[in-house]
């Protein structure tokens, strides 16, 4: 553990709010990104982010530096994510909490040199399709894919984070890519007929695509 990290953690243990903020600032983007890509819901991602840091701060006394703090923290977030859906699936319909796509487009406009509204719309539809497919992956496959494809972590790192063997990571990743590939191909074929989501009464349920 680097000396300054040890120092910050000491201060967190002593209840120093500045240190808490410093840790939060350092890690929030990465943790949130994983959560958002995994949940596809800013509300969920925010909840997980908050819960992650709350758990971390409460149990920081038990962190002994066997792994890096980043790893430890990300593990907490991953566990919360993986449990999140299991809990919520039984509680409420998921469509309501999805990313509001118009918000998303508005949000991106300043950063995205999209040529015209039509292009923006196409981009939005593609993104929806992809996130729907990703969302249908089983939780651990989905997490492995998010960490690999979007976070660009190494297989070895993912195996450490998810506490599974590298072989399992590889197999998750393979299955995820095959599913996504087939999903994208299938949607291309049926794109103009029926909304593909309706054919899979899966996690998302029907009604996403209007």
């Amino acid at each position, binding site marked *: 553990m680097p000396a300054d990290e040890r120092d910050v953690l000491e201060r967190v243990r002593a209840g120093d709010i500045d240190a808490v903020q410093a840790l939060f600032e350092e890690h929030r983007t990465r943790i949130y990104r994983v959560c958002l890509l995994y949940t596809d819901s800013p509300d969920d991602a925010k909840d997980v982010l908050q819960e992650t840091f709350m758990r971390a701060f409460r149990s920081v006394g038990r962190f002994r530096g066997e792994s890096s703090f980043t790893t430890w923290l990300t593990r907490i977030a991953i566990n919360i994510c993986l449990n999140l859906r299991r809990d919520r699936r039984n509680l409420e319909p998921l469509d309501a909490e999805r990313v509001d796509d118009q918000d998303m487009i508005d949000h991106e406009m300043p950063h995205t040199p999209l040529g015209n509204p039509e292009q923006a719309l196409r981009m939005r539809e593609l993104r929806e399709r992809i996130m729907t497919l990703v969302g249908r992956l089983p939780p651990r496959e989905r997490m492995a894919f998010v960490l690999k494809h979007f976070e660009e972590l190494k297989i070895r790192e993912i195996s450490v984070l998810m506490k599974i063997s590298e072989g399992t990571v590889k197999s998750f990743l393979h299955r995820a*890519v095959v599913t996504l590939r087939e999903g994208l191909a299938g949607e291309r074929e049926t794109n103009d007929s029926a909304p593909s989501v309706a054919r899979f009464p899966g996690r998302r349920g029907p009604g996403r695509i209007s």
Partner: protein
Amino acid sequence: MSEETRNTRCQELGEDLVLHLYDELSEAERTALDSHLAICNDCREELRSSRDALQTIDSARIDQMATFRLPSWDDLEDELAFSLAPLPLAAKPRRFGGMSTMAKAASILLLAGGAFIAGLQWNSIADAIVQTASTSRTAQPPHPLDGTASGAAPLPAVASAGDRMRAFTEQTHGYFQRSRLVLLEFANSDQISDGTMSAASRNLLRETASARRVAGQIRDERIQDLVVTLEEILTRIASNDTDAAERARLRSDVEDLLGRLELTAPPERFAQERSRT
């Protein structure tokens, strides 16, 4: 190579195709895969379509949504700061109605003629609260929390937060002051329902986080109790309940609490404010 072995081989290499796309193969694995690809049309096709799929995913630029509505420290500060508070504060059951007895109020030490009566740790905290509010920013006194008050139990290591802590304390002081004014108003009001007071309480409730934070850092049960009680009372005022019995209970609780809040006011200011109300 027979058809059967080829299929087995293809299955074996299925994962490697994906790993290849993510550049996760060792040199040897890569060579082995390449030599298989050279003779296997199916695997070449699978590699191509997987690559296309991943490129399609990349083209959606989903990474751009990755910080969509990224919460800032301000968004989560309340919860996160609160999570640091020692458990008694967080775990304390909410006690709406009949929370503060006179005995408890007395144990919290009242401010008498500007002098603090006993109370070691509490003393130094109350001191800090009053001093930071009553001294100007230009004449920075040594922060009372930077050392241990004589005879007091050593304070937890909040001293390193120095300046921030001072600012927080100052903020908390204002919160107490404004709360006290609302409570005074409430205690002196005969109206059954008052939207203004309710609104003022709601505003004050937004500031409770800093008070909790200070309380959490200080780790003094009495301060925590004060903060929790005040929050409860403000919540009740904010709810603007017109039930007569609740109103009477609330009034009595408010009077109790007022005694406790005087702690945080420099006496002369308190006198001025009281004459105004």
